[in-house]
């Protein structure tokens, strides 16, 4: 078989127009393995594998196997469906649960039940409670006011301290003057004060 013929047969094969006889010709060509053109060399393995499978006979229980597989797939699909249904139901329950809680929270945000039913009395209690908090917090805060008073009280002390510092500096000037005069006497420097 020449190269042109086998190439046209292969084209025909891939177009799906080959007869059984022509397919056998292609197979025989690759089986012979003589002067296979480079461009169709990669197809050798493909055509020989088809040949190999075509010679394999189906097992006796193929039909059973196919049916078993179909059953298995069917079961799996049913299982998935029932799982989905269960998921929908549980999601629904969960959603209802959330709504219920939300509803409950809106009506009754806490589980606490008022022991007072009279609004006026409730107002008095709330007000007194806040006033009590204020009073006690105020007690704590007055200590800060005392601190403020202490700092005010120590203000004159700090002023005295500043005065002392100034006096000290003044005294140092005084000593400096004394020393300068002694130095003048020793070296008979003419008094610049004149």
């Amino acid at each position, binding site marked *: 078989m020449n190269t042109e013929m086998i190439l046209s047969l292969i084209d025909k094969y891939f177009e799906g127009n080959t007869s059984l006889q022509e397919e056998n010709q292609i197979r025989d060509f690759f089986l012979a393995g003589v002067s296979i053109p480079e461009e169709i060399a990669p197809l050798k393995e493909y055509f020989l594998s088809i040949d190999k499978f075509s010679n394999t006979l189906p097992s006796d229980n193929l039909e059973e196997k196919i049916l078993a597989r179909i059953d298995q797939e069917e079961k799996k699909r049913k299982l998935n469906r029932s799982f989905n249904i269960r998921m929908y139901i*549980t*999601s629904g329950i*969960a959603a209802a*649960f*959330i709504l219920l*809680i939300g509803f409950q*929270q809106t009506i*009754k*945000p*806490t*589980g*606490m*039940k*008022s*022991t*007072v039913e009279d*609004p*006026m009395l*409730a*107002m*008095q*209690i*709330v*007000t*007194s*409670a*806040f*006033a*009590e*908090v*204020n009073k*006690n*917090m105020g*007690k*704590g805060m007055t200590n800060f006011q005392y601190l403020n008073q202490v700092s005010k009280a120590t203000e004159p002390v700090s002023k005295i301290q500043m005065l002392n510092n100034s006096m000290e500096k003044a005294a140092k000037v005084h000593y400096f003057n004394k020393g300068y005069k002694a130095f003048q006497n020793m070296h008979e420097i003419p008094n610049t004060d004149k």
Partner: protein
Amino acid sequence: MKKIFVLLIAMLPLFVVGQSALESVFEKYSGKDGFTTVNIGPQMFQLLANTNIQVDVDDQEEFDEAMAAMKQLTGLRILTCENAGSDLCLRFRKDIAQNTPKNYLELMTVKDGDSDVKFLANQEKDGTISEFLMLVIDTEDVVLMSFTGVIDMNTISKIGETMQIEGMDKFEETEK
């Protein structure tokens, strides 16, 4: 199924929104001999906040602020143990100490004569206070007070001042 369990567990805090961290202590001692219990629930706070109270024009702004703050409260609980020196009151104090969450901020402790006052608050991540506790222990009794809701300390003082002085008489008038 796992996801649902996780969801349910995540939802658990919803049940306890607005409840005191010391819920177990309140439950344990409420109604017992030697204790006085006062609970004001969220509905009552809503009712009070929506009550039309006439105040002087000058006080209106402060009063409105106080009412807005009250609207955000979900509960007030006061539990008083009479006879501070009794074993029951000591147990009560111990239970409070044991059940107070560690993350609660101790805002202030005031010791004034024979009375000790402690202020604690639960500060949320956004800075708001969701529970404010005041514990007063003196020679006569032990008082545990819990405010729950969205609490602003500035407005607490406003409610105390504004309502005590200006609000109450007007409220009584509207009720009559």
